[in-house]
């Protein structure tokens, strides 16, 4: 492995230096797994030897995922938040910047915001009870033929249970209670495109239901097995199709197997001095194929574009055969773009196996930043102006006051009195001298990328605009911490669930003139619904604007509440989320900006894309997959 995980000072060659720098760019806080940390690579590559491998080792995801990752929560098994014996929050493990650190303010914030108490615990079932997993329904003929083609597979309970869910609250909640619903009957691990073709052909022949599985980070119930499915369900885990097959430096494209996960893709490209720049919040675990089939969006889309802008070529195996374009022209006028049948198809039409993506040289310089605004309205007005002038940095996000407070609660213990004195001074300046109301102010976090000179110039331009809306530059630290929050928030949810607090996030996209209205109304609706549904404690209802476009923005909502005293907290939570989505739609927001529809949001598809639109999609499905082999029943 290129650069070590030990803080990365003064390592190796020029190449390694660039790569290492790039790593710090990826997510600010991420540390790669230590060398040999994940050695579980059972399979050997059966892809033709002639194929170029840019790099092949150090993959994050083994076949036996549960050996590295939690079976009933987010992320790596060794990384979690807990309250230690002194009642202080800490983050375990060694993988992250925050790992091993104490977060002194979290406890007070947690107890104060939710009315929760460290005395009231709601621990999860520690181990998967394999007897709770239904015996697999196997299609023997299919299994026999699968053996004959030599694709690895398993029907062990752990493997199957791991692939029967995504990361919706209700899915994780059930797992924590040890409840396992319908799960796939077996898991197969194809190693390359040809393997997939064979598996799909066998599935068609024996009428077996296939559910493609990439990173498992779905938050739309897309991975849930339809309970009404009577056929044998086979989870097609693409994690072993994780190679970069070639890099074309003339056209700046890379041809990649679709099972590769975000962090591996970035790391491997970085070694060659490139990046895709596609960084969705889930990039540690989500896969390229998953991005394509959900129309994913990355935080730096302002420079690199969303997934639909990044793909040049897609290869997908469907029951009718392989679909792909014949060339790699940058744009084509050949009827409706067939890529758009694939992008967002959510595993209902086939398996994406290989993708050609645009790549860019790793940027020479990057800089975080933040701006404090007196209130959310001013902040939104500033983002709108930035979008209008088309000078958005790689990422610009605006957190509301609740999230600003939340971010503060995650400040690690300060090392010196001097730092805490400086913090105090900064706070005094903003609230007393500048007269910002601490209960209204909000903060925008920024990330600039490019060559040094341009970044500084760009930075000035953005800060000048911000100043017109009353914004004050608030330093790089705040910015960086804002992005960190994105990556640890899912870990934090597990902590909350240990103490009767459940949480979820959801997103939408909305025209500029409605951003404030959607934010206000949805937040208020969540509060009102919680109250109406008998939630005893006032919920956390918070939002942030995470992406800007010419004509609108992407808004992310978080909500969380203490469910003590509720007999069916998940049902209450589902009702609240449903109401919140209704509110979004009524206020002119979209059904989803990048999470997708899955089964969670299916009921609104008709009103979202019209009767005819649904019919169009249905007729594509009917042609491509008449026997409903890809039977996850997402979308339609």
């Amino acid at each position, binding site marked *: 492995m290129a650069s070590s995980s030990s803080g990365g000072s003064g390592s190796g060659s020029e190449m390694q230096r660039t790569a290492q720098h790039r790593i710090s760019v990826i997510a600010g806080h991420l540390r790669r797994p230590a060398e040999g940390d994940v050695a579980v690579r059972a399979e050997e590559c059966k892809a033709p030897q002639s194929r170029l491998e840019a790099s092949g080792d150090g993959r994050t995801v083994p076949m036996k995922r549960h050996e590295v990752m939690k079976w009933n929560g987010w992320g790596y098994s060794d990384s979690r938040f807990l309250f230690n014996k002194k009642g202080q929050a800490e983050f375990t493990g060694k993988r992250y910047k925050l790992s091993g650190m104490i977060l002194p303010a979290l406890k007070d914030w947690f107890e104060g915001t939710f009315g929760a108490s460290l005395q009231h615990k709601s621990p999860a079932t520690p181990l998967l009870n394999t007897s709770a997993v239904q015996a697999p329904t196997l299609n023997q003929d299919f299994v026999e033929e699968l053996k004959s083609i030599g694709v690895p597979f398993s029907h062990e309970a752990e493997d199957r249970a791991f692939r029967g869910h995504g990361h919706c609250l209700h899915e994780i909640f059930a797992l924590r209670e040890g409840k396992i619903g319908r799960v796939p009957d077996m898991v197969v691990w194809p190693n390359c495109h040809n393997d997939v073709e064979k598996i799909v052909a066998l599935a068609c022949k024996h009428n077996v239901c296939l559910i493609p599985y990439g990173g498992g980070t779905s938050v739309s119930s897309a991975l849930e097995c339809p309970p009404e499915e009577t056929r044998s369900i086979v989870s097609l885990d693409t994690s072993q199709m994780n190679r970069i097959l070639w890099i074309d430096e003339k056209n700046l494209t890379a041809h990649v197997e679709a099972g590769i996960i975000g962090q591996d893709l970035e790391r491997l490209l970085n070694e060659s001095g490139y990046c895709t720049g596609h960084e969705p919040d889930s990039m540690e675990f989500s896969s390229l194929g998953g991005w394509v089939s959900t129309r994913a969006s990355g935080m730096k889309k302002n420079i690199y574009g969303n997934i639909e802008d990044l793909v040049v070529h897609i290869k997908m195996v469907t029951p009718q055969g392989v679909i792909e374009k014949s060339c790699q022209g940058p744009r084509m006028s050949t009827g409706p773009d067939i890529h758009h049948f694939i992008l967002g198809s959510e595993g209902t039409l086939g398996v994406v196996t290989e993708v050609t993506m645009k790549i860019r040289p790793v940027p020479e310089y990057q800089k975080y930043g933040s701006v404090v605004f007196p209130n959310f309205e001013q902040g939104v007005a500033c983002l709108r102006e930035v979008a209008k002038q088309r000078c958005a940095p790689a990422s610009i996000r605006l957190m509301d006051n609740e999230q600003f407070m939340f971010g503060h609660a995650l400040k690690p213990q300060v090392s010196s009195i001097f730092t805490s004195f400086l913090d105090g001074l900064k706070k005094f300046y903003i609230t007393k001298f500048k007269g910002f109301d601490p209960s209204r102010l909000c903060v925008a976090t920024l990330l600039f990328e490019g060559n040094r000179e341009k970044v500084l110039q760009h930075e000035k331009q953005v800060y000048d605009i911000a100043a017109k809306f009353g914004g004050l530059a608030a330093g790089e630290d705040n910015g960086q911490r804002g992005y960190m929050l994105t990556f640890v928030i899912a870990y934090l949810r597990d902590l909350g669930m240990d103490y009767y607090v459940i949480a979820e996030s959801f997103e939408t996209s909305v025209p500029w*003139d*409605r951003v404030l*209205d*959607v934010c*206000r*109304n949805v937040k*208020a*609706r969540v509060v009102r619904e919680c109250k109406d549904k008998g939630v005893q404690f006032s919920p956390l209802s918070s939002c942030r604007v995470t992406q800007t476009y010419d004509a609108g923005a992407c808004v992310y909502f978080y909500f969380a509440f203490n469910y003590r005293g509720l007999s069916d907290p998940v049902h209450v939570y589902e009702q609240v989320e449903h109401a919140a989505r209704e509110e979004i*739609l*009524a*206020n*002119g927001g979209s059904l989803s900006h990048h999470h997708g529809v899955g089964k969670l949001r299916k009921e609104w598809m008709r*009103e979202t894309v019209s009767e005819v639109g649904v019919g169009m999609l249905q007729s594509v499905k009917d042609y491509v997959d008449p026997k409903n082999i890809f039977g996850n029943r997402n979308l339609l």
Partner: protein
Amino acid sequence: MASEAVCSHRDPMLKKRDDFEDILEERRNSSDLRYALKCYTPVLYKQLTPCTASDLKNMVLCSTQVHFVIAQVSKETGAAPEEVQAEASSILEEMAHRLQLGPIRFFAFVLCKVFKTLFRSVCVNEEGIQRLQQSIHEHPVVLLPSHRSYMDFLLMSYILYTYDLALPVIAAGMDFMGMKILGEMLRMSGAFFIRRSFGGDKLYWAVFSEYVRTMLKTGFAPVEFFLEGTRSRTSKSLTPKLGLLNIVMEPFLKGEVFDVALVPVSISYERILEESLYARELLGVPKPKESTSGLFKARKVLSENYGSIHVYFGQPVSVRSLAEGRVQRGQFNLIPRHIPRRPSEDVQGFVNDSAYQLLRAQEENMVLKPWVLLSSLLLQNHHQNQNQNQRRGGGMMMEELSEGAVWLRELCRQYGAFLHWPDHVPPAEVVSSSLDLHRGLVTISDGRVHLNLGHGAQKGAGLTAEEELLSQAVIILSCASYRNQALHVFVRPALLATALQAAGSAHKQDVFNTFNFLRNMFANEFILCPGAAVQDFEEACFLLMKTGVVLMEQEEVLVTENGHRTITFLTSILDPFLQGYQVVCRFLCEASTESLTEAQFVPAVRTFIVRLLLSGRLRYSEVLSSDLQKNALAALQRLGAVHKLKREAEPATLKVNTVMVNSLEDTLGGKLPTVKPVASRL
């Protein structure tokens, strides 16, 4: 669901109504000046963007809505945008309020003095005040008081000031602006002035609606306006005007605020200041123009006792819960929200239904005084014994009146009326103190209670028969206006009682058909929620059964032995209206040959009615009320029996469908409906 939200107080048995507190009591015991200068720190809207009255004007003039219309108007008329902008600015100047605390304090001081001389008490439900305070904090608030007197909006501001609540901005008719100094004073105490009609004027509408919306959205102040549009001269609630309600609901429907709270406020006067003024106006004596000097002349009213006022702040109604399941808010998603559009049909229907529900909530919380019952009884007695009365002075024995009042009190309570009858005082005392307060309308001699009709005859040497009739009608109409206060309690049972008599069959479906016909006929006269015929019928049946007046046997509705008194009372309540509408029908049939303009209608029908009254062919002089006549005409137009013909440069004339009007008259007269109304599901 929505209707439950509004009508939660219908059954007083279910929820005890709130208690009242007399706010004048404290004023009588402590310094008015200190009160006027007290520390005033109201609870404000939690998301308030603080701004001044002139900031508001700027926000309006800079809004995309107004800009859009300015551009549109300038394109259409060819005027320079700056000119149109200037016009918009002057419209706003003419309209805008200049809410300031100083004048409010002045008014508070003066009103203290005035109220203390005029009224025995001003009673307010404190729980309502608390609910209101909560609402003001949570959401933009719209106050919807009933409108019976000029006093209403001064009174509202006075009460809110007293309770340290945010002072409202009030939509007032332009006619007030005529009063020079007072107009400006009102402006400074929060009134903003709107023209009575501005139908086609886009710019005016844009500026006006944006002004109201801006005040609402920013939470500047609660917005107050009268759903009825104008003062009701008859004490009946008027058919709601929807323009302003549309405007205040829009910010919610378009997602600009999370919710809007509508607070119906019921103001009931024991004795209305404008009592005889209204009666004269209804009889065709034009109302005096509002002027400051006129107000001073009217100060003789200061020497009289006007009893008590009850102000009930109703349960705030959330527009959000009203609209739930009724309006697709997504309909505003595809067109920029600043482009003015006619409300879609479902929004119009929604606003209309909401307006009726709010008015009903207002009516239900009106406090009825004993005099309301007494005037009903006295009027009925007068009409039943009209001929004998003329021979032997007539009137009712005190005991008879007391007994009737007690009987009616029970009936009222059974029907859920909000009756303020002091139970610890013997009924006879209640009656006589009520009569005392209204001695302008009644006299007591030899233990008999008379309406004050006789005076004309005694000193009336110089009066013609018609003049005498009119002066009697003033008294009758004044009394009728008090009786009308209770109409909302009785109207549904009364329609059923009348239907039972007219249907000629006890079969439920027949009764319903007749009920439905009558209900439809009187939809302009009383507050009957559109499309709620079945509910109304069921409510009426329920009330009559509950009081043992009717029995439901299989498909039959039967009047019981004991029920006749109630039935008689109920039918007599409706009878003047029934006959009035018949008379209007007859008039239209007879006048149909000539071309009658709209403006000529009221004088002509009045002459016709005077003739009928003088010849003794009509008993009810309250039919002379122009309100009833206009309502009847509106009903006939709505039913398609009369059409308005508009011609260029000529006043509109009325085209009467004689056959239809004739048949309506017959049906009203108790003949079986020739055309059965479409059988509704029961």
